[in-house]
């Protein structure tokens, strides 16, 4: 039940909001007539909405506390439970598989195109998840490697006519190399310092691209990037979108496949150990620097792969596609989806990229919505939409 105290609190919060938004919501300067209009009705609305929002917020907070008390143990996300259950796993995966398969044929091209973007973000998210989610390195310049991949395809194709399929492994390698080169000096820093320096590096790459006209036409960018060919056959525009869709699906599957293997390997465990406790990790004989560098370089590899697909899909790239906002969006995908949780990241990418596309009305407020979502997730579900679970090893107990 709502208590008196809560009502009082909500009342003051509403009052505070009214004061806070007064200049924005109430005062309006009409520059044509040179008069100031006071929109008092807005003030009342802000008050009512603030009051109700605060009540609802409190209600959910209390629900969360009660739920926490009720069951502390059984908090494995439902998706994981479905996947762990032999009976459900096959039908569950089959349903997703069939949906993915028929998707581009059932829905118009526009939807397929949006889905491709979302799937590219799944790849980017899974790559960044290695760096941020598993190894705990806050990388705000991830988009730099995305740019490396995109420009690698655009330039190699422009100058040497190299095809998509050949560029793919080259770009991956370039991503690894750039990741190692950038990681080498910056990974000696930690926490906030690392975040700031990677942010700087990301911006440097963009500014270089913007100003180096000879390399990639500067801000004008590179156009006419061909879409991938199918054994030499070039599809028409419509079919080519479908084709790219399936390529991304394949790449996403490949990513999930490899990331899952890495996560439960010697190196994956070392990443998580490093994230959980750097000193204990080193005391267990793990080389801190090397482990960080592998995570960083591997994350960069996937970013570059994503970049190639992006360039092939849009057929035009310029430095504006690789701003800091891109890095932040990918980071949001990881944090909101669930740090260190592959399934969470996939869900996060689909939600965060598809929603703004379909809710065109809020698309303008994308960053605002991200911010609000970030706050809500951090308060109510700090582990992200779908929390990661660790592998349970099966082995036969030996008889003594």
């Amino acid at each position: 039940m709502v208590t008196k105290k809560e009502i009082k609190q909500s009342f003051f919060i509403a009052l505070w909001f009214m004061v806070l938004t007064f200049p924005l919501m109430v005062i309006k300067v009409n520059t044509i007539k040179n008069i100031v209009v006071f929109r008092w009705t807005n003030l009342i609305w802000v008050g009512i909405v603030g009051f109700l929002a605060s009540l609802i917020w409190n209600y959910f907070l209390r629900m969360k506390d009660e739920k926490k008390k009720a069951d502390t143990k059984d908090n494995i996300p439902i998706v994981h439970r479905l996947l762990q259950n032999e009976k459900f796993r096959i039908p569950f995966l089959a349903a997703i598989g069939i949906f993915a398969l028929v998707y581009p044929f059932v829905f118009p091209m526009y939807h397929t195109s949006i889905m491709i973007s979302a799937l590219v973000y799944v790849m980017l998210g899974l790559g960044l998840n290695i760096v941020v989610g598993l190894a705990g390195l806050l990388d705000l310049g991830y988009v730099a490697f995305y740019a490396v991949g995109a420009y690698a395809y655009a330039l190699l194709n422009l100058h040497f006519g190299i095809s998509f399929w050949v560029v793919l492994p080259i770009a991956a390698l370039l991503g690894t190399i750039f990741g190692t080169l950038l990681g080498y000096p910056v990974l000696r820093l930690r926490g906030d310092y690392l975040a700031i320096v990677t942010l700087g590096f990301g911006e440097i790459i963009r500014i270089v691209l913007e100003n180096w006209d000879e390399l990639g036409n500067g801000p004008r960018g590179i156009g006419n990037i061909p879409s991938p060919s199918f054994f030499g056959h070039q599809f028409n525009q419509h079919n080519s979108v479908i084709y790219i869709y399936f390529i991304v699906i394949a790449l996403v599957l490949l990513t999930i496949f490899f990331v899952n293997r890495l996560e439960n390997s010697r190196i994956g465990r070392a990443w998580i150990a490093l994230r959980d406790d750097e000193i204990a990790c080193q005391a267990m004989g793990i080389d801190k620097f090397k482990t960080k560098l592998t995570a960083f370089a591997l994350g960069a590899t996937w970013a570059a792969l994503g970049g190639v697909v992006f360039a092939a899909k849009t057929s035009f790239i310029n430095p504006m596609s690789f701003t800091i906002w891109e890095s932040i969006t990918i980071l949001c995908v990881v944090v909101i989806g669930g740090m260190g949780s592959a399934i969470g990241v996939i869900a996060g990418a689909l939600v965060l990229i598809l929603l703004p596309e379909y809710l065109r009305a809020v698309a303008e407020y994308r960053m605002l919505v991200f911010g609000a979502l970030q706050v809500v997730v951090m308060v109510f579900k700090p582990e992200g939409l779908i929390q990661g679970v660790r592998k349970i090893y099966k082995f036969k107990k030996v008889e003594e």
Partner: protein
Amino acid sequence: MEPILNVKNLTMNFGGLKALDTVNLTVEKGQIAALIGPNGAGKTTFFNCITGIYEPSEGLVEITPPGKPTQKLNGLKTNYVTERGLARTFQNIRLFEGMTVLENVMIGRHCRLKSGIIKAMLRTSSQKDEEKQAVYDSYEILEKIGLDQYVDEMAVNLPYGAQRRLEIARALATDPFLLLLDEPAAGMNPQETKELDELIVWLRDNENVSILLIEHDMKLVMSLSDNIHVVDYGKKIAEGTPEEVKSNPEVIKAYLGDESEDA
């Protein structure tokens, strides 16, 4: 008896503070040695210096692993110290909270395994065998330490005493010849302390490790130790068998001067 750890004139300055002042200490093979002293005496700093977490201002740290030549540890990074066979636990428990108990121990195996990224991605047969072996070895260690019932729990969910034991299990997984235990009994109840006592003796007798432990529980120290080193204000003030140390006037003075002691 040959010394397996030989520390000479170890000095550690923090700005003006001499946390360690020309400390000499040796541990012999098969020994259980203790390092005791009042709060802030510099015991943990001593561990940090020999395991490469701090770089000592002066002094020499040498080890002689069984069957291997003597080597210097100064200036070596922590992970290489561990690789050479010195493993430690922490006074303030430092487990990997995002992992299961088994995985925590598997982290200890890390430096004895080889598979890298490529092998993990391709899951080669050598990588699979290695993983299987690591799981098996880790489980065996958990059995020895008496934690096998918790194998799939997340490490944070363990009771306090079990967390301390898990730290020992994890350290043991690195195949050390010398275990450095920083206050392993801190926060344990008498029953748990007794079990710890037995565990430490068992480790020495069956696992071929020597032990150097820091401990405030004097009953435990006196019953366990072959040799006790006492430090106060960074200086070593006494060394000897439990009997000798107990009757040493310097030691009595150091402890009586500190009211927070329970000796």
